[in-house]
């Protein structure tokens, strides 16, 4: 186990290094000068050039990369060109807001997806299985940004029972029913795809276990006994946990479209803004932190899997 841990950690460090190179390199492929967007159109070029030197954008790329990496190690992602605020602080706030919808969406997706998948598998080939399968695939096939708009029209405008956009009052963790009501539509929209992914995955895993471990004769005697269900769920757990971890990564990065529709001030919106403003420090920081977060989730998932199932420690 110790060797496995060491190898995984080393691997993770290497990946993180690669991620930082990609995040930095990608953003520096942006044509034009990142400062152009900060200044009103009337700004003369001389002033633009002056500021460019001040932000260090005139230095060679590798010098900029090393300087940035050095700061990142000290937990400093720089300051936004556009707002002058610290990127680290801005990002933590936005990431926190994203987790406010991502975590409930993950929990919902895990619960609903596992239930639907298991029910479908135990009813393999029956109408219920077909129905669940189609529903689950439908969830995967609906563009969630479009679904979000439709939900807003129905629940916020036509029936006026749920708010259409934003986080409500306080910001941060919801503290009242009023704050919670703002969560309903974004969480429902965001969980749609993970429900589909997990539902499909659980169904096929359970089917596989049923196929492998319970020969036809045995199954004929009673598939639904508590013993069988327990055995199946225990064996289905590790891959489900793994997929769940991966879906959390999707929820973090993929929430950008949902956040746009619901005006949710999370990390996706921060990144969208940074792209359109050419705010290089914010964009770099967001891409790096989201990817790093994802890498670390994967590390945790691997370790959890290895703890559950020793065969994984290769």
């Amino acid at each position, binding site marked *: 186990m110790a060797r496995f841990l060491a190898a995984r950690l080393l691997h993770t460090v290497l990946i*993180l290094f690669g991620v930082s190179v990609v995040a930095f390199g990608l953003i520096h492929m942006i044509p034009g000068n990142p400062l152009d967007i900060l200044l009103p159109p009337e700004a003369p070029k001389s002033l633009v050039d002056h500021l460019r030197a001040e932000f260090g954008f005139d230095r060679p790329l590798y010098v900029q990369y090393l300087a940035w990496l050095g700061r990142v190690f000290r937990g400093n992602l720089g300051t936004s060109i556009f707002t002058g605020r610290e990127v680290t602080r801005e990002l933590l706030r936005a990431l926190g807001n994203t987790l406010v919808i991502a975590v409930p969406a993950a929990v919902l997706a895990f619960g609903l997806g596992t239930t639907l998948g298991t029910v479908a598998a135990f009813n393999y080939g029956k109408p219920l299985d077909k129905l669940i399968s189609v529903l689950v*695939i439908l969830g995967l*096939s609906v563009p969630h*940004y*479009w679904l979000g708009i439709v939900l807003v029209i129905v629940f916020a405008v036509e029936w006026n029972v749920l708010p259409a956009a934003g986080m409500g009052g306080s910001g941060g963790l919801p503290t009242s029913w009023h704050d919670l009501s703002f969560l309903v539509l974004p969480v429902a929209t965001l969980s749609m795809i993970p429900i589909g*992914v997990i539902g499909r*995955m659980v169904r096929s895993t359970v089917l596989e276990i049923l*196929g492998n471990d319970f020969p036809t004769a045995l199954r004929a005697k009673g598939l639904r006994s508590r013993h069988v269900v327990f055995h199946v769920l225990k064996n289905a757990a590790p891959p489900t946990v793994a997929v769940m971890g991966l879906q959390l990564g*999707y929820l973090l990065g993929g929430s950008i479209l949902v956040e746009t529709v619901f005006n949710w001030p999370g990390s996706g919106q921060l990144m969208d803004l940074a792209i359109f403003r050419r705010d290089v420090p914010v964009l770099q920081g967001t891409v790096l932190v989201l990817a790093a977060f994802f890498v670390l989730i994967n590390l945790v998932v691997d370790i959890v899997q290895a703890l559950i199932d020793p065969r994984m420690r290769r």
Partner: protein
Amino acid sequence: MADIAAVQRIAAPEVAEGIAPRGYWRTVAGRVRRDRLTVTAGAILLAIVLLAIFAPWAATHDPLQGDILHRLEPVGTPGHLLGTDETGRDIWSRLVYGGRLSLFCGLSPVLLATIIGGVLGLLAGMGGRLLNSLIMRICDVFYAFPSVLLAIAICGVIGAGIANTILSLTVVFIPPLVRVTESLTRQVRSRDFVEAARASAAPLHAIIRHQILPNVLGGMLVYATSLVGISIILSAGLSFLGLGVTPPAAEWGLMLNALRQAIFVEPTVAALPGVAIVITSLCFNLLSDGLRSAMDVKLPS
């Protein structure tokens, strides 16, 4: 990106043990034919593809030329069966023509990624340790980015446009395809019949062509079809953010985005491009599912 890999765990079947390819495919075809859902999905897809190909005949109007005096007409308007859009263009004609670009933007990244990722995956699977590590570690790095994040970041950086959409989605899909192909190749490589071929000193390209490829291709294709739905939704999503296909082209994602402004005025018309995306993506997903179960010998049939 590894979020896509989650699909992979479901979609990529393991290579069937020592089955002669020809008989196997016949079994698969037979199973598919008995699966009514898959057949229906395939038929609808075929219809969509045919409509797109024969768009000049299927369309009733010029998809790019509208009549400003007849904008946002409701569904069922005489002459405009599915209504008109925000500049008075016929929705049915735009949907039909839009199918061309939407299918193209959905299929081509997957196709390109299958070719590029397939070659890289074969190389990694058949090559030595060093080559394998090099390819797979680079893939790992790209894998570390959530797919939507990567697609949006690439498009945001290089700008909007059809070519850029396809490029960014191809980059997104290559690493998972490399992984699938590499793992399938390594499974096949360790099989007895490959070992036998190697022992008889058959040249490498012959082994790849006759032993590896036929056994790897099926799994790759099933996985690839499972990506088409995602690809269509993602490319439309890029257009939704203003990072994808640019106007006045007819494309479903772009139409959805443009008609979004009218969703309170003509909700049904505004919803139509979304419906087209849902149906197409749903059919691809159903088809991929059907293929997967037909090819998975372990499932009770």
